[in-house]
């Protein structure tokens, strides 16, 4: 009697438990999903929808389909901006990643004295808010009263015009280099710590020195971490905004309103009141970043397989 009564009860309990467990799962994910939907998905969808209209100061709002996108793809300001951030990427990212890699390898040898201090020192610029970093560098670049200019004057040599049209991109690249080298170093260093010790032992048994170990074991082991750093850098470079925006008051004729695509979108929306077109430009930029990052990952994947 009792046994037969027990069995169906147990059977009934199980799906209820799964359901409860599933519910708990949703509850745990909910805080993220709600914020994600409200702050990311919904605004994104709204912006996409918004980019299909054109609201004029005179004449009101009309549905224009993909006109804004057609305009964006033929707008020289968009392409000049993309060319500029592309140049910025080539100028800044390789140097930053090579230095970050060298620093990570140096720290990992454990030879560096005060390695904790060095690690912290390199990382600290990343902890400084980008706004502060840019203001600080902006002050240092000052063509007449900045410290570099003052120093050059003392020595009696000419000072390069860091804020001029020719050097501005390099000056911006330097700020970003200063801010993010430590960040990339920490990613690479963490990946190095995860390399199994047996590999090093085997290398030592084979008679490999520090250089050989770095070249044949550490760098190949860093491959996926480097890919991550690279993808972050592609995104960061193409979305360049804070640094040029803050440097604009120092050189308003050098950093114009379409200096980078993000700056252009901001200007379109908040100076020109072309909100719809600004949304379209943002989507075009997003698309290009997506394609660029994906192409990079595809290329590296294929190479690692072959």
């Amino acid at each position, binding site marked *: 009697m009792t046994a037969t009564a027990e069995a169906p009860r147990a059977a009934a309990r199980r799906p209820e438990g799964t359901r409860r467990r599933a519910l708990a799962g949703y509850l745990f994910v909910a805080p993220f999903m709600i914020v994600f939907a409200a702050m990311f998905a919904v605004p994104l969808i709204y912006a996409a*929808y*918004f980019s*299909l*209209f054109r*609201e*004029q*100061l*005179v*004449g*009101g*709002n*009309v*549905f224009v389909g993909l006109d804004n996108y057609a305009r964006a793809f033929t707008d020289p300001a968009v392409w000049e901006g993309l060319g500029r951030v592309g140049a910025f990427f080539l100028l800044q990212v390789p140097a930053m990643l090579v230095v970050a890699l060298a620093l990570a390898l140096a720290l990992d040898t454990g030879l560096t004295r005060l390695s904790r201090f060095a690690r912290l020192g390199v990382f600290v610029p990343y902890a400084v808010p980008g706004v502060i970093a840019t203001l600080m560098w*902006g*002050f240092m670049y*000052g*063509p*007449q*009263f*900045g410290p570099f200019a003052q120093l050059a004057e003392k020595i009696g040599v000419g000072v390069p015009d860091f804020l001029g*049209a020719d050097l501005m991109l390099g000056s911006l690249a330097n700020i970003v280099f200063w801010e993010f080298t430590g960040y990339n170093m920490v990613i690479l260093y963490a990946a190095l710590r995860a390399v199994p010790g047996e590999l090093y032992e085997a290398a030592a048994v084979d008679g490999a020195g520090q250089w050989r170990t770095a070249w044949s074991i550490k760098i190949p082991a860093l491959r996926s971490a480097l890919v991550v750093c690279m993808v972050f850098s592609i995104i960061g470079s193409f979305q360049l905004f804070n640094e040029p925006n803050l440097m604009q*008051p*120092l*050189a*308003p*004729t*050098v950093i*114009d*309103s379409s200096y980078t695509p993000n700056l252009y979108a901001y*200007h379109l929306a*908040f*100076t*020109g*009141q*072309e909100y719809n077109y600004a949304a379209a430009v943002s989507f075009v930029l997003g698309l290009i970043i997506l394609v660029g990052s994906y192409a990079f990952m595809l290329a590296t994947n294929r190479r690692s397989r072959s």
Partner: protein
Amino acid sequence: MNPRFRRRTGLAAALASPLAFSACARERAQHQSHYSQAEIDEAMRTPTEIDFWTWVPGIEKEVALFEEAYPAVKVDIVNAGQGAAHYTKLRTALRARNGAPDVAQLEYQMIPSFAITEDLLDLRPFGAADLADAYVEFAWSQVTGTDGQIWAIPQDTGPMGMLYRDDIFEAHGIGVPATWDEFADAAGRLREADPEVYLTNLAPGQGAFFAAMLWQAGADPFAGTSGGDLRVDLAGEAATRVARYWGDLAEQGLVSVDADFNDQWYQALNKGKYATWIAPAWAPTFLESAAASTSGKWRCAPLPQWDAGSEPVSSNWGGSTSAVMSTTANPVAAAVFAQFINSDRESTETMAFEQFLYPPAKAVLEDPAFAGQELEFYGGQQVNGLFAEIGATVAPDFQWAPFQDQVYADFTETVGTAFTERTDAVAAMEAWQAAVEEYAEYQGFTVNRS
């Protein structure tokens, strides 16, 4: 119902809804065209709360005076940033139809930009026209719309004069230039005498300064603009004259072309890189704190003139107004507030003496306690009195574009860039004109060149 049909109508409705949104956006709360004194009194006795966005520090004092006079109305002051930051937030709030203030500070040049989007409330129904005679003529004409609307009440102004370093002028035997020819001549002589010093700095990103120069020369590039009809002429005779003059000075390296209102510029003012600052009436107080180390060395003079013989002409740079947003739910309280703080005797005096705002109100300008104030920073000169005299010579007519912030941005990219790169500024005026035309057409304006 056919599901396919339903899906289509749903899609159409979804696509049409921003149109619907914007239809409501344009449809402001309907306000009466006239309020009797009894209605105004009634509203001012009703407990009300209004929001006031301003970046004037210490405005609490004037607000307290208002709340004393109208105890039923409570004013909440919000500082949403200065200039561009303030306008960005204001526009966003107005577009969102949520969170916009009842009253906001607006600079004169921004009035048409907010009028075109129907965001301002005409203050005529609230008796604002009675205040016309209380203010200097040019200030009142700046708040007046093309169809006679009163879009705002003047708060402060900036008639243009010239601040100069008496010590530098004296050291090199340079007299105070009364005309622009003399000014250019002095610029050359000063360069020869001291290569470290420029007679003045021409800030390439400062469209407001250049607009003041155009204004003084009699160019009125947007005159005749009304509603969706935009008239723009940046390449006319007077405008070309101004561009050629400053372009030549920049090209010959007789003036510096540093960006202004940043750290380098403040240091340059302190270290005596610029012998003059062509600047408005709010500049003397500003300079006292920005270049504190140079106290006693500066003096003020009227703006140099184009024609030595004729009556002096000046223009205006900056200054603000108080405007009532058309979205307000409390039009009476908001309108009375905007009028009170800018016309009540005690309130306007507090603005002039404590916030150091240069007054548009005749009563304050004529007050000997104001005009006769001797400023130590300027060697004891009666600076306010001098600017009051200059204010009387400001040409009353100068119209702003209905998208002035875009016009300034285009200026920097064309004419400002020509100044920096020492290229042809007159040709750049054509480029500026073209950029403005292109933008205006895109925004649906009908563009006329003359």
